[in-house]
């Protein structure tokens, strides 16, 4: 299987994540699209790890997962706090950080 196929697959997933981030207004969906972009990068790193027969890339994927878990915990806490204040997850309401 040529490495280009994995490159194009992960690039397609990454671009779908970008489209979702730009298209949607729901803050939770935007966070999910960011997760999808991180996963696309992970897939490409694993493909290159197989290509060079090097475990360092897989360790890097492991650390990306760690950071993603921490990011989601803080991001969802921020979204829950915002929902408690303005009763919406619409990012257009958040265009002014001062309420």
């Amino acid at each position, binding site marked *: 299987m040529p*490495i280009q*196929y994995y490159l194009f697959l992960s690039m*397609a997933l990454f671009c779908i994540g970008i489209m979702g981030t730009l298209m949607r207004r729901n803050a939770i969906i935007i966070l999910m699209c960011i997760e999808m972009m991180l996963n696309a990068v992970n897939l490409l790193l694993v493909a290159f790890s197989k290509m060079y027969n090097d475990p360092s890339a897989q360790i890097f994927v492991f650390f990306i997962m760690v950071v993603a878990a921490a990011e989601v915990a*803080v991001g969802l806490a921020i979204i829950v706090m915002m929902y408690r204040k303005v009763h919406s997850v619409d990012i257009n309401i958040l265009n002014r950080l001062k309420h």
Partner: protein
Amino acid sequence: MGIYEVLFWFLTVMAISCALGVILSRNPVNSVLFLIATFFAVSGHYILLNAQFLAIVNIIVYAGAIMVLFLFVIMLMNLNADTEPQKNRLVQLAGVISGGALFLVVLAAFRTTTVSVLEQSATDIGLIKNLGKTLFTQFVLPFEISSVLFLSAMIGAIVIGKKE
């Protein structure tokens, strides 16, 4: 076309169609379920690439923990298709065009490159034994620092989410 190619194309189609489902479905709960399906397809790709440990971790951490957290928050807020805010058509079109333009640029840049073909030999670098040896010899300092990151993220999430 062997079983490897069939599995590759099946998982590819599944990943891309479920990823499109994430951004196109109006109900946030459906988006979460589509994203879980996408993560399962990516985990299948990891298994095809001989990264068994990462495939299991991907299922446990992403599909198991993170997406359940998303689902829990969405159900806590009682979001559904009726309350879903929609951007106007022009902004949506601009988003699709800019994402598609980036994809076209990368497609054009990498179309003619000649790189090696991944052979389907069974390597054991993705097994937990080898990854653990690498993690605890070469990368032990980043591993310890990531524990501090986790602690600070946990404290931050509790402080932010606490009711005043």
